């Protein structure tokens, strides 16, 4: 008798121990995955956050040198201001920072502390403040990428001069400007508003953000209704026979097709046969819709299938047509699931790069697109483009773009969770 009890206790201890081990494995696996996510986020954040502010240098611009009376600016139209010749005037305003410099070479070096668009920036300031210009105005001009990186501490100053893009004399100027309190940071609004640029300090994600937005909009408009209707037909109306089995298998296959294949399809058919404009969010959206459709169809079908058949019977039994039973009772219950599937599909599409490369959305686009028919980049493609660039400024911008992309993805997934929570039918 006692033998038997002892045996049981031993076997129970064994089972409890194996349960403990199993739990440790599970926790280990989860921690491992979590650790990698954390490392990824930390890595991207630590190299990307500095792209959200930028270095500006304070310059006093003597507008009186440009015109006899600064009140005259208020009578000029924007076009008049555009026609003003301001290049040497702007340069002279910058030289005034170091009046002692005589040599042309040094002057050139000083100018290079600033972004190449300094003249444009002074002109813009003039345009937006033309009615209220004093004799001398203090303007914050964008520093060049090299200065920006030195200021942020991303640039190793102790390299030999010939291995550095920024020269010793420029560092001297820079340190002097810092001592005089003329160098400061400001929030990098242009980074969020502008399109791509060859100059890292002027490049922004605005263009690719709008491009991504248009693309996702096209995907939503195309794939949501098509996906929902296809799923409703397949789940509720289609006869169960070989043809529908075949369609079902192929939809599942479609979900597994590598995305670059859809890019080839877009290139071959949408661009070359139908002749839609290259590099545009419209075409990108169409291609990504093809990719997103199976995800939406599969998710919607699953949530339709989860609606209890008794609801359909209840509606049919009071004399509803099949369509009424489905649209009034089944679809509303399945909608949260369908929406969640759609948002997850859209999030996938948002992060997709390969098919966009093939349809030309990898182009260098300076302008922020105004419509889905304008050439544009998208966020993931922008990451790809900048990750290949040599200038240091693009390194932080690449990471910052990834941060934006991850931010949007997290927002979309959050929306999916919230929609599910809010609209889920309570039984």
């Amino acid at each position, binding site marked *: 008798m006692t033998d038997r009890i002892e045996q049981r206790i031993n076997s129970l201890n064994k089972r409890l121990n194996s349960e403990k081990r199993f739990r440790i494995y599970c926790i280990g696996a989860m921690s491992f995955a979590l650790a990698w996510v954390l490392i990824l986020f930390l890595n991207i954040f630590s190299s990307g956050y500095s792209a959200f502010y930028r270095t500006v240098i304070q310059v006093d611009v003597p507008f009186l040198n440009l015109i006899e009376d600064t009140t005259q600016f208020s009578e000029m139209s924007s076009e008049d201001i555009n026609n003003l010749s301001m290049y040497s005037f702007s340069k002279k305003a910058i030289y005034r920072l170091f009046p002692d410099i005589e040599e042309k070479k040094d002057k050139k070096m000083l100018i290079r502390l600033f972004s190449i668009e300094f003249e444009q920036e002074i002109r813009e300031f003039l345009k937006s403040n033309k009615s209220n210009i004093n004799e001398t105005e203090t303007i914050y001009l964008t520093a060049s990428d090299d200065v920006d990186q030195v200021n942020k501490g991303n640039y190793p100053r102790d390299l030999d001069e010939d291995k550095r893009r920024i020269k010793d004399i420029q560092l001297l100027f820079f340190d002097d400007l810092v001592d005089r309190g003329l160098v400061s940071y400001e929030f990098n609004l242009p980074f969020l508003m502008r399109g791509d640029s060859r100059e890292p300090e002027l490049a922004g994600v605005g263009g690719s953000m709008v491009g991504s937005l248009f693309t996702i909009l096209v995907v939503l408009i195309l794939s949501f209704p098509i996906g929902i209707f296809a799923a409703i037909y397949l789940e509720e109306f289609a006869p169960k026979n070989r043809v529908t089995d075949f369609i079902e298998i192929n939809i599942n296959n479609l979900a597994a097709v590598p995305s670059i294949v859809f890019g080839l399809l877009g290139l071959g058919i949408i661009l070359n046969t139908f002749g839609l404009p290259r590099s545009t969010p419209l075409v990108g959206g169409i291609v990504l819709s093809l990719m997103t459709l199976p995800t939406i169809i599969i998710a919607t079908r699953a949530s339709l299938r989860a609606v209890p058949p008794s609801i359909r019977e*209840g509606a*049919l*039994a*009071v*004399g509803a*047509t099949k369509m009424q039973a489905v649209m*009034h*009772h089944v679809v509303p219950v399945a909608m949260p699931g369908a929406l969640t599937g759609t948002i997850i599909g859209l999030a996938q599409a948002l992060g997709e790069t390969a098919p966009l490369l093939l349809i030309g959305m990898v182009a260098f686009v300076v302008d922020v697109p105004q419509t889905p028919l304008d050439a544009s980049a998208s966020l993931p493609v922008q990451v790809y483009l900048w990750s290949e660039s040599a200038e240091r400024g693009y390194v932080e911008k690449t990471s910052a773009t990834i941060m934006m992309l991850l931010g949007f993805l997290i927002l979309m997934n959050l929306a999916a969770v919230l929609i599910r929570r809010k609209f889920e039918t309570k039984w």
Partner: protein
Amino acid sequence: MKSIKIKADNLNVHYGEKQALFDVSMYMEKKQVTALIGPSGCGKSTFIRCLNRMNDVIDICKVQGKIEIDGNDIYAPDMQVEQLRERVGMVFQKPNPFPKSIFENVAYGPKIHGIAEHKSDLEEIVVNSLKKAALFDEVKDRLSDSGTSLSGGQQQRLCIARAISVNPDIILMDEPCSALDPIATARIEELMGDLKTEYTIIIVTHSMQQAARVSSRTGFFHLGKLVEVDKTETIFSNPSDQRTQDYITGRFG
């Protein structure tokens, strides 16, 4: 002789290869309760689902033979199945209210059939249906609550109210009390007694006591065949078939 409401003639039903009903012929009297009893899988649910053509939903289901309601063949090609179901309401085994408000549950039928012209008409129909289903007093203060928030017995009475709302002649009840406790069951049985003054009721039940309590005629199904149909008292006191005798005395089933 009471008048005949429903008449089934040589009804055969197949699910694919499998035959579920064999040559069932019976009639049901107007404004009476007819009970269908028999062991599980005997075809009584299949039979009742033929009466409002709910079996149409199942692709592989084939119905042969004839069912007449008031002399009209309900499987005739020109019969509109939606119209048929408006006249032949159904209450299911498991309460299946829509996941919507109590009001909308009852208002749905009248709405889709365009029975109520004004909103006030619709409210009147809903209130009357809930009263007839003996539910109104319990829910009158919370008509906008979800139908699924009610108790099981209340849900089933809500489903009865939903069936009544389109003003049918016939109510089919497919084991309406099998998911309910004895008290809720008693309320539904009491309700059936009230409803039969206006409606012809066919009830499928597993409980022989229930059949004895509520019905005037009873049919006994076994293995897809209608073994015997007669006055309820005759079935339970003096059945003519040995199988019926065995079933009601509890020897099988």
